[in-house]
Structures are given as C-alpha cells and as structure tokens.
C-alpha cells in the first residue's frame, strides 16, 4: 500500500509539473520587451533635408568602415526641435534618436537646457581639425558635444548677365560693403527692372549674416546678456535692411519655396546666402553659366570681414544606449574621413568644416554651372575667416521680437527707439 501511495504522489507531482511547464510556455512572451537598457543593434538618426543632410548621412553609412544598422528618419526641422524639447524636458529618452542634427544657432539652447541628455564626443575625434567658429556653438563647459557637419559659410550668389547689363563685373562685387551692394542694386533695378534680392520679412537671416561678419550677435559673449541697443553692427545692419527696402528692389517672399522660386524664375539678381543654397540654384539648369559667387558684403565698420555664416548644423549624440556606436560612426566618417568629404562635396554639395579635407581634389574642382569658378575652394577659404560668435540660447526668440520691431522701423519708427524697445522686450521676455 505504501508503494502505491508513493506512486500516486509521483503521478500527482508529474501532472502538476506538466501544467506548470505548459503554463510557463504560454507566458514566455510577456517578459521579453521590458528592458531598454541593452545595447540596441539599430542606430537612429534624425535630419530634415533629404537632398542635403539626409543624403549626407546615407553617404556616411556607405563610407563607414564597419557594418551599421542605421535608420535615418526625416523630420521637419521644426518638428525635430519640438520633439527634442518635448522628449528631453520630460526626462524620458523614449523614442529619442541616437544621432540628431541641430542647427548651430539652436545648439546652445539644447546643450544648456539639457546638459545630461547629450553625450560628449570630443574624445572620438580631433577638434583641431575643424573650423574654429564651429566649435563654440557645439561645445559647452569645455566639452565637445557636436560633430560639425556643414559650414553654412555665406557667399553672394549673383546673376552675371543681369549685373553685366547694369555694368558690373565680378571685380565690382568682390569685397564690397553693404552700402556698395545697395548702390549696385539700385542700378540693376533701374537698368534691368529686376529686383536685387528676395527677402522674407519674417526671417531676419540677412541681419544675422551681417552682424556675424562683424563678430557680433544678438547676445554678448556670455551667450545670455541681450545685446541690442548698444550693438553697432546690429544698428548698421538695420539701416542697411531699411535702405534695401526703401530702394524698392526687394522681392518679398513668405516661405522657402517662394524664396527658391524668386531666383529660379530669374526675378532676382543676387542671393546672399549660406553655401547650401548652391544646389537649389543649380537645380535650374537653364541658368547654367549665368551665376557666380562673390564674397558676402561686409558692414562698413572696423573688424568686419567679407565672410559670415548662415544656418550651419552639427551632429549630436544623445546619451542613451547605443551612444558609443553612434559616436564611433560619426567620428569614423564626419570626424576623420577626408575621402568621405570629397564624396560629400561632389554628390551632395555639402561643404564640411573638416580642414584636412580642403586639400582634396574635389575641393579644388571647377564648377561648370558657375562658369568654371572653383566654388568649393572659395567657400573653403572664406570659411577660415568667419568670425566666431557665441549664439547663446535665445537667437530665435530675440529674432521674433526684432522682426516685429523691424516692421515698426520700416514704417518710420526711430532706430534708437526700435532697438531700445526690442532690448526691453527681450530682457523682460527672457528673464
């Protein structure tokens, strides 16, 4: 009988164990996706321009010496800014990319607001290889966070045919001041009927170009103190802007596509802009040979140079799992690969700030569209001259205020008052 009791117990045990095993089988899937702490095999990157920075990332992916599962996600720049702000301020890094492209003028606001969110990548590449003016906006407290992507070096693109018709040559446009530019513009308008420039009244990009060429910005060196009312370069820039409007050679645009349309349609004679506009100009093939690039005009004051910067951007790595992989990828491509930069210039037209690359062949190449001008080489040379400024945190907030005051100024408000009011508004708003 004892044997039998033992045997029954054994059977019972077997049954229980079997059910447990079956039950365990069924709930196996539940626990798998819980932890995100491990190294992911997919690296994600956010960028905004499929023809420019996204294309550059694609090339980098090809050029990378190792295998990488890189997913590039296209987002509008505004969306990237908004998503980053939302994500980082909530402290949850969920859904954040490993690599994100940030415009230099916005970079400090992110770095300073969320210093722990970004991963310092200064050890992965040699910062001395990059243009100096790119390092200030991309670093914080001595730590390098950004890997510079494109320069944003500016130039004055102009229609050679229109200017010739008005009696001007390349010589006449080289190393001029904005006043000289306005005079030329008046001539062009009078002789050809074409507007000289297309501007979006809501975007003071041209003002920024002007003041950086004189080494000034909306804020002082510390990046925080609002510097408008006693800012001489800004004052001069405002005067120049108003002079252009009053000269009546400005074609207003309200968005990017209209801006592009303005020069693609042949309505304007010059485009003072960052070098990244070149692919958009070249897109209009009927105008091949009719364009040239001169150095950007400078402010008529001491210390102003014929070089400035507009809208360059840099790559940042977020401090989330996969950061080492992402940093290694960036360092191996954008951080140290000269050959890759040649491809970048040739295929995408993106001009990096990696100085060793400037010796490469592609940088010396002549550009047929620009009548054989060595455009890249020229931009490269101007890049070296760009004065370094601290963009600080509040570039776009201040610019909104300035844009409103600019309209008041155009309507006749006194410039001193305009700047004083803007200063007051900015100070109260940014306190």
């Amino acid at each position, binding site marked *: *009988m004892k044997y039998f009791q033992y045997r029954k117990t054994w059977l019972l045990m077997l049954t229980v164990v079997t059910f447990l095993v079956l039950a365990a089988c069924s709930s196996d899937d539940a626990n798998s996706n819980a932890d995100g702490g491990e190294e992911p095999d997919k690296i994600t990157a956010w960028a*905004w321009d499929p023809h420019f920075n996204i294309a550059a990332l694609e090339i980098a992916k090809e050029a990378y010496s190792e295998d990488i599962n890189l997913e590039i996600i296209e987002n509008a720049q505004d969306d990237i800014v908004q998503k980053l702000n939302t994500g980082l301020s909530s402290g949850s890094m969920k859904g954040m990319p490993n690599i994100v492209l940030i415009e230099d003028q916005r970079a400090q606001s992110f770095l300073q607001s969320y210093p722990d969110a970004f991963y310092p990548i200064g050890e992965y590449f040699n910062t001395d290889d990059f243009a100096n003016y790119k390092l200030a906006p991309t670093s914080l407290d001595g730590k390098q966070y950004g890997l510079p992507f494109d320069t944003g070096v500016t130039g004055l693109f102009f229609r050679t045919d229109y200017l010739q018709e008005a009696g001007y040559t390349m010589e006449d446009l080289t190393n001029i001041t904005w006043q000289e530019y306005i005079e030329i513009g008046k001539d062009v308008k009078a002789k050809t009927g074409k507007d000289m420039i297309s501007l979006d*009244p809501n975007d003071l990009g041209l003002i920024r170009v002007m003041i950086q060429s004189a080494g000034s910005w909306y804020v002082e060196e510390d990046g925080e103190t609002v510097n408008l009312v006693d800012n001489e370069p800004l004052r001069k820039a405002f005067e120049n802007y108003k002079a252009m409007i009053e000269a*009546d050679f400005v074609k*207003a645009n309200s*968005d990017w596509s*209209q801006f592009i349309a303005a020069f693609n349609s042949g309505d304007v004679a010059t485009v003072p802009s960052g070098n990244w506009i070149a692919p958009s100009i070249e897109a209009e093939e009927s105008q091949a040979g009719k364009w040239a690039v001169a150095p950007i005009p400078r402010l008529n004051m001491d210390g102003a140079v014929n070089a400035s910067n507009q809208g360059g951007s840099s790559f940042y790595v977020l401090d989330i799992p996969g950061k080492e992989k992402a940093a290694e990828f960036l360092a191996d491509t954008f951080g140290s690969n000269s050959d890759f930069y040649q491809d970048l210039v040739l295929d995408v037209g993106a001009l990096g700030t990696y100085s060793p690359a400037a010796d490469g062949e592609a940088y010396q190449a002549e550009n047929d569209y620009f009548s054989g001008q060595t455009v890249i080489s020229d931009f490269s040379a101007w890049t070296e001259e760009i004065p370094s400024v601290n963009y600080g945190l509040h570039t776009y907030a201040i610019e909104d205020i300035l844009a409103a005051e600019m*309209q008041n100024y155009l309507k006749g408000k006194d410039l001193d008052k305009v700047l004083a009011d803007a200063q007051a508004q900015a100070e109260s708003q940014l306190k």
Partner: protein
Amino acid sequence: MNKLLRAIQTNSLFVKMFLVMVISIISVTVLITFSTIRMSNNLFMETFSITNTKVLNQIKQQFESYSYSVVYTTINVQNNGTIKRLLTKENVSSLEASNSFYTIKEQMDRMFSHNPSDANMIVLGKNNQLFNMKYINWSVSADALIDHPITKNSNQHPNEILYQFVSEGDFTNGRPMIVATKALTERSTENVYGYLYIPIRERDLREFYEGYTSEGNSVLVMNGRGEIISSNQQELIGQTSQKLLAAAKETEENGIEYKDVHVLDKDYLLLTSALPALDMYLVNLVDQELVIDNLVDRREIVLISIAIVLLAVGIVFIISRRMTTSLRRLVKQISNMAKYDFNKPVAASGGYEARKLANAFNYMLNELQEHVDNLIKAQRKQRKSELEALQHQINPHFLYNTLTSVKFLVKENKKAEALETIDALIPLLQNALGNVDETITVEQEVTNIKNYVQINQTRYGDRIKVNTLISPDCLHYHLPKLVIQPFIENAFFHAFTEKKQGFIQILIAERDDRLVCEVVDTGDGMQVNKMQGNKGKRQLFSGIGVRNVHERIQLLFGKEYGIEVSSELNKGTKVKIILPIIDENDKNNTISKDNTKTRFLGGENF
C-alpha cells in the same frame, strides 16, 4: 494475426477499459477545447464591438474638434480685414510688400494657433499672393494651386467648406493630403478674392486614430464618394469602394452596432461612424480571423489539450495496465487450477482488488481442500467398516459344514483327523475376526491357506490338490489378510465342476520390488468377466469375496496394485495378485516411497 487476436482476447479487459478511457478523455478534451475557443471568440467579439464603438466615438470627437477648428479658422480668416485688403492689392512696393507679408503672417500665426499643430494653413489671393504657414509640409506654388481642381471646386461652392482629397503625386510632394478649402468672398458682392486651404497630410490625419488600430483592426476614413482618403492600411488610400460606402451608410442609418461584410476581398466586421460635418465616414474594419488568431492562440490551446490527452492516456495506460495485468494473471492461474488438483494456491500480487480476490480464492481453495479431505476420510472409514463387517461375517454354513464334518469324523472314530480339523479351524477363525487392515506374514497366510485347504479336503476329499510354492525370501513379507483365500475358495468350488480332479498352485515371489502371488488352477477355466458374477453364498468362508479383493488392495495401496485374472476354457484360470512389499521390520521406509499413500496412512493409526 492470430497471435494479435489472441493477445487482444487475453487482454480484452485491458483493451476495453483502455479504449473507453481514451475515447472519453479525447472526447471530453475536444469538447472542452472547442467550447473554450468558441466561448472566448464570442466573448471577445462582444467586448470588441463594445470597445471599438467607444473607440470610434473617441476618434469621431477628434475629427469633430478638428473640423471645429477648421471652421473657426475659416471664419477668422474670412472676417479678417487685413488679409482681405492685402489679398486684393496689386503691384506694391517693396516696403508695402514687406509690411503686408509680415502682417498677414502675423495674423495667420494668431489664427493658426487654434489649429491642430499638424495641419497647415495656406491663404491664396486672386493676385497670386500665397502665404504658407508650413511650407515644409506642402511647398506648393501659387500658380499650381490656383489652377487645381480643389480651387475650382471651391470656387463653385464659395459658401461651403469642402474637404477634398488630394492623392499622392507631384502636386503634394508625393504625400496624400486632405485639404479643407473655402473661397474667401466679399460679403456684399459675393466676389471671391482669395482662398483658404487647411491641408492636413494623410499621415497626420492618421494619427487621430492610428493608436487605436492594430493588425486586423484597421480604421479608414472614406469621403461621401466612397473614396478612401485615409487608412492605417496605406495601400487602401485612394481606392474607391462603393460597396464599403453602402455598407457604412446602411450601418449608420439603421443604427446597427456592427455588421459582417465582405469588402476589399475579405470578410470583415464593420463598425462605422458618420462625420456629417466633413462628409466623411469613419469605418472600422475588423478582420475577425486575424484578430482572434492574435488574441486567442488556438494552436497553444490545442497543443495544451493534446499534451493533457497524452498525459492522461499515458497515466490511464499505466494504471489500467497494472490493474488488468494482475487480474489477468489471476484469471490465468484460476483457469489452470484443475492441472494442479486444486491444491496450488494462486499468487497474491498486483492491485488491492486483485490481491483481495486472490486471498479470498486461496481461502476458499483451502476450505474446499479440507472439505474434500474430510469427505475422503469419511468415505474410507465407511468402506473400511463395510469390509470389516464383511470379513467378520463368517459364513454360518461354512461353520456348520465344517462342524458336521468334524462330528462325522468323531462318529467314525477318526479322532486324530477330527482334532486336526478343529486345530485348522481355530486359527482360521481367529485370523478372520481380526482387523481388516492388519497384515500378516506370508508364512502365516500360507498356514491359513493350508488350514483352509485341510478343512475342505476333510469335507470333500482330496481330489483337488493344493501346492504351494513360496519363495523363501518372501516369507517374512506382510500382506493383508484374506487376500489369497477367496481365490482358493473360488477355485475349489467353481473351477472343478467338470473335471472333478485337479491342482491348485499357489506361487508367491518377489518380482520388480513387488510381491506377486499367483493362484493357478487346472480346472475348467471360464470367461474372465464371469468370475465376478459367481456368488455361491453358501460356500463362502467370509463376507470377503473375490469381488472385494481387488477393491480392497487398491484402497489400501493405490491403483498400481490389484488383481489380474487370465483364464482359458478347459485349461484353467490364473489369478495374479500384485501387492507392495511390506517388510514389517522396515515398514515405514517402504511406505514412504509412495507419496500418495503417505497421506492415507498418515491419517490412520495402523
């Protein structure tokens, strides 16, 4: 084949039991499995339709709030004098343009903030001035837009907000969009001075509901023409399905909660909600099979069921095997019982029941054995007393005749002969009255025979001679009383009716470890079977006759001993009595040789 059949037959209890159990286990499991799946399906569909109705309502609210903000924005733009003024202006200076561009954007910015952030807002004037709040979403040019059908539709219905679907193509940078359009009209003249567009990319519209969808549970938005303008199943976007539209209309109008439909080449459960303000239908298609498959893992349930069945069948197999095996063994033992004279107990093993049964059977067997033993004992006792009675029954005629003979001898003064006869009679009687089981030595028997013969010869003369030939080594052997005498008597009185003269020979010798006594006469002979019938009662010496001897020997010593009679007419009869060798000195040894006898003798006191 036969082997298999026999195996099945011998195991038939097991086979039946096992089959019944297996069939019931399987059928119970199958029934439970199916009803579980069916019940969960029903329950799921029930809850699913309830949840999805609520979900649809929530999505509907999102769409309504979207449409509200579109209406609100439209009214604001329509009523905005600045926008109207700037849209109607032509040929302005840079200063004016700069000013108006700035102002209009500022105004639009203010109004645009009411809109869901993903929607765009475009204002287009008759003067080809275009203001785009989010050119990155849709960088459309004024020329392209003003000639597009959506603008023309708007122009034809200037007082309505039209929600128009623009399928993917160059016009929208390859992204399908839903554009709310409204012509901006002067209130007094009803002149159209511009257009307002509130485009939302399909993928942004999708976000209104995408979170509620899953594989097999899709949502699509259909306009009043049956065109699918948005769906989480992107391949459906741009298709037109009148059937789906009809089904949606029907469910909506009849207030049905859900409906089974076959659309887009598949069977679906359809839930719908109308968006009359947008002239759209919100349709929720549930691929029942897929969703249920995802939710209820049939394969797993079936696998678990199979595992349970296998386990149960295995356990049933082991248990029933154990139970029936012991029973089967028991049955086999019992059916073989006869071979072992019902005295071999069955082995008690196996399950509780089998062991109880075996024990009971053994107990019964023992009782039976005992009973049979008792019966045999009683029978033997009875037979013995019968024989004894016969033995003691000295025939009075014999005594009478003998005494008469003696009387005549005395009368004739043959005193010596008379004395001799009486001397012979006395031991004869003494011998006959003893115990029927008692044995006497061969020597004594011979003496008895001689006495008997003498008496007979005294009475009937000596025309029949008797010779005895006894092997001297046999003299001390024992044999039962009155074993040989009846044959001599028989020979005396029946063998010599014709011949009148002759010999009777008595031979006793040991042969093959047996004591063989032969009574041979030279008389008439007879037919063997007749011997039994002769019952000359008067002539007999005692109740023990020829008839009893054989029986008595076998009773005493077993089947291998007894009488053999051979006879030939006119030549004589030969009776062979075969007995065991009983040596009184080592009687026990001799007896123990025969196992069968042991019990017989063991039970008696000799």
